[in-house]
């Protein structure tokens, strides 16, 4: 049984069909990297999976929570799916600890004392136990992104979506964030990552999904996909990213 099951997803912005029938299954504990050229629809796909974008056709199923164009229990879906954004999107008026505590208290109505413990654990997991009372603008980009990961973790999602979460970081801060993702992967978290860090994708992910013009053009184990691309598009893409 797959944890995430996408069936025939179509998504258009006006006349521009961005997703042209996506089928994808992700098993519990699987770590999937989405790669592909700019504009191929990676972010859009990720955003449909927690209901930030409505789909025109198809269905999304995550651990029993189901969304299609007709019926959408977004709350049920979002309780299963965590998301980390490129721009961190921490709440600027709240401390790191408050950022992490907000949703469990407000959405899950858990007691403040319980949530405090959860938040401390989540921040400790991302190596920021000592930053509980720091405000976002007192943290480096890498630290902010790790708080964002902790914020998502505190909701105990079944799967986490990460959209280029190191792209807004200075190069020297990328590794501390990737290390956290690597740790989550090792602990068995189900992850769906859009990334341009090919070396990381190769090392950490069990599946690479190559998107091209709104379709999944190829998918498979990283070594296989990298060494034996079946389509010219992927071969060209690999050439492009390894040149850099």
């Amino acid at each position, binding site marked *: 049984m797959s944890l995430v099951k996408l069936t025939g997803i179509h998504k258009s912005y006006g006349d521009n069909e961005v997703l042209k029938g996506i089928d994808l299954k992700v098993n519990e504990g699987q770590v999937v990297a989405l790669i592909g050229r700019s504009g191929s629809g990676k972010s859009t796909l990720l955003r449909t999976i927690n209901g*930030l974008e409505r789909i025109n056709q198809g269905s999304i199923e995550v651990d029993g929570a189901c969304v299609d164009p007709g019926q959408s229990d977004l709350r049920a879906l*979002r309780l299963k799916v965590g998301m980390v*954004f490129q721009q961190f*999107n921490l*709440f*600027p008026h709240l401390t790191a600890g408050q950022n992490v505590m*907000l949703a469990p208290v407000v959405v899950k109505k858990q007691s403040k004392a319980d949530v405090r413990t959860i938040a401390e654990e989540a921040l400790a997991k991302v190596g920021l136990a000592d930053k509980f009372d720091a*405000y976002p603008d007192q943290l480096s980009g890498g630290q902010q992104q790790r708080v964002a990961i902790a914020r998502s973790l505190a909701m105990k999602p079944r799967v986490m979506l990460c959209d280029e979460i190191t792209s807004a970081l200075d190069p020297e801060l990328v590794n501390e964030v990737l290390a956290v993702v690597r740790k989550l992967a090792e602990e068995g978290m189900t992850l769906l990552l859009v990334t341009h860090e090919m070396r990381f994708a190769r090392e950490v992910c069990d599946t690479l999904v190559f998107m091209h013009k709104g379709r999944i053009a190829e998918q498979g184990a990283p070594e296989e996909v990298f060494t034996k691309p079946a389509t010219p598009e992927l071969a060209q893409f690999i050439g492009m990213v390894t040149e850099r």
Partner: protein
Amino acid sequence: MAYSFDFPAVFDYTPVLVDGVVLTAALTVVSTVAGVSIGIAGAAARTSGVKALDTAVGVYVEVIRNTPFLVQLFFIFFGLPTLGIRLPEWQAAVLAMVVNLGAYSTEIIRAGIQATPRGLIEAGESLAMTRAEIFRHIVIKPAMKKIWPALSSQIVIVMLGSSVCSQIAAEELTFAANFIQSRNFRPFEVYFVVTALYLGLAVLLRWLLARFGNLVFARRAARA
């Protein structure tokens, strides 16, 4: 021209002045609390995405912003009794000020809300928060912080504008001034003193609002 100033002639009426200051202050406090509350609700309605709500509040805001305060006051005090709604002077004054500040603060607060980065709202959505929860916990506080200086100025304008309520015999500070000078025939001294009192009130109000803003919107010192 040898005019001999006689300020003691004003201070003979100190109790009247004090009453006037107190009523002006009271009108300001009540209309600020109620007006800003309406402003928050109105701004929430205008940004709710519900077209009917947005339009309804939009009409209210434009009617108030494009008509004179004095006419709004007269409408409430002299017009409404025709419909059987008869309000005492001070209630009519409060109502007019609340309705007026409500409209202006709706627009000011709306601007603050609309400056919320899209990503913060999406972060809230992705955490399964509802629209209302996002508004309450993510949007409104930074928005209020951002527009607090503009809102403070509007509150001072409303406080000063309350002088118009003397026209319906609400016994606020300007009413007190008119009353005193009709007794002692010392308009220069009376209006000089009252001008100074308004100035003092305005400076005090600005200071209080700034303090309040610092208190509410400042962050606790971080442990670092």
